[in-house]
């Protein structure tokens, strides 16, 4: 609260300290929305500039980190909303790496092959499958299923009600599962054709 108060009083070094201290948190939120470093940095800068202009609204009831997380989430959501949603991913759109990863996982040797490279392939696949969902649904699912956040934590970070978080997560999880099921089904049929 001291840092926030000093920054509110126009102390630039206090705000610089806030930027230094909370950059990792803000980058972590922005990384949920963007994969490219340039986009993450652009978003993070926008978040801190917005935070500076809104410092007066921080009353110190919650933590400064929580307040920044909410600004970060909403700023990123606004940035993502302006971009177009991608069409549904089909098995023909899969890269060789992604198809290989799916085959490995289905064969049950995913754990043995849990390399950094494999994780990146899986993350790419997640991005491509999530891209068809509304950004709000993506966030709810990534935070709950990906980061093990509770419904309450997501509600605090986004400013949504807990029931809204539950509905968004349920809807997103269902859609992602169905999309994955479709991919697996198509891949199975493709493998059958190849074996004939």
């Amino acid at each position, binding site marked *: 609260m001291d840092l926030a108060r000093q920054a509110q009083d126009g102390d630039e070094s206090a705000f610089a300290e806030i930027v230094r201290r909370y950059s990792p948190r803000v980058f972590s939120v922005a990384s949920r929305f963007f*994969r490219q470093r340039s986009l993450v*940095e652009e978003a993070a800068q926008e978040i801190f500039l917005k935070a500076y202009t809104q410092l007066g609204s921080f009353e110190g009831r919650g933590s400064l980190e929580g307040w920044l997380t909410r600004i970060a989430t909403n700023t990123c959501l606004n940035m993502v909303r302006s971009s177009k949603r991608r069409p549904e991913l089909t098995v023909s759109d899969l890269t060789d790496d992604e198809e290989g990863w799916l085959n490995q996982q289905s064969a049950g040797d995913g754990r043995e092959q849990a390399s950094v490279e494999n994780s*990146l392939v*899986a*993350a790419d696949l997640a991005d491509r499958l999530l891209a068809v969902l509304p950004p709000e649904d993506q966030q709810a699912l990534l935070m709950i*299923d990906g980061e093990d956040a509770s419904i309450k934590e997501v509600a605090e970070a986004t400013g949504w009600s807990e029931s809204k978080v539950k509905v968004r997560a349920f809807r997103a*999880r269902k859609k*992602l599962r169905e999309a*994955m099921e479709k991919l697996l089904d198509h891949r199975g049929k493709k493998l059958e054709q190849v074996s004939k």
Partner: protein
Amino acid sequence: MKEKHITEILDNAAIASLSEVELKEIRVHTKDCVSCRDAFEAAQLAAVILKSRAQVTIEPTPFFQTRVMAALREQQAVESVPAMWRLWKSAKVLVSSMAVTTAALAALSFVLPATSTPVDQPVSAYSAESVIIGQGSDELTYEQVMSTIYADDDEAGK
């Protein structure tokens, strides 16, 4: 199929947070239900890719703080300039070009010598002589020739 399908359990919560009872129910049900077995496999893979995606985070560079503070000072500098001055700075090219155009139009209208027909000149610009000699006859109609001749006659009569 005696039991309820388990897709609702799969969609209600993250697989990692399912209780032992729920997992047992899923295992028992998927032994006989192919569609739920496929759904469970898909849900497991979806959970794996979400975990992988959540692990991808980009760390701030050491220069990020400097970058933000520079952007902040730039923003403050922009805000400190009066609004009218900023408006003038952005619109001065447009305003200048409009002023030049207006001045040019004014010069064309008032300063340059008039080139139009004098007011006291008769409507018919053809004299009897020019008609008779045939100057510009290619462009005259029969009615114009006749009206010019009779107009001259009228003037002579007066």
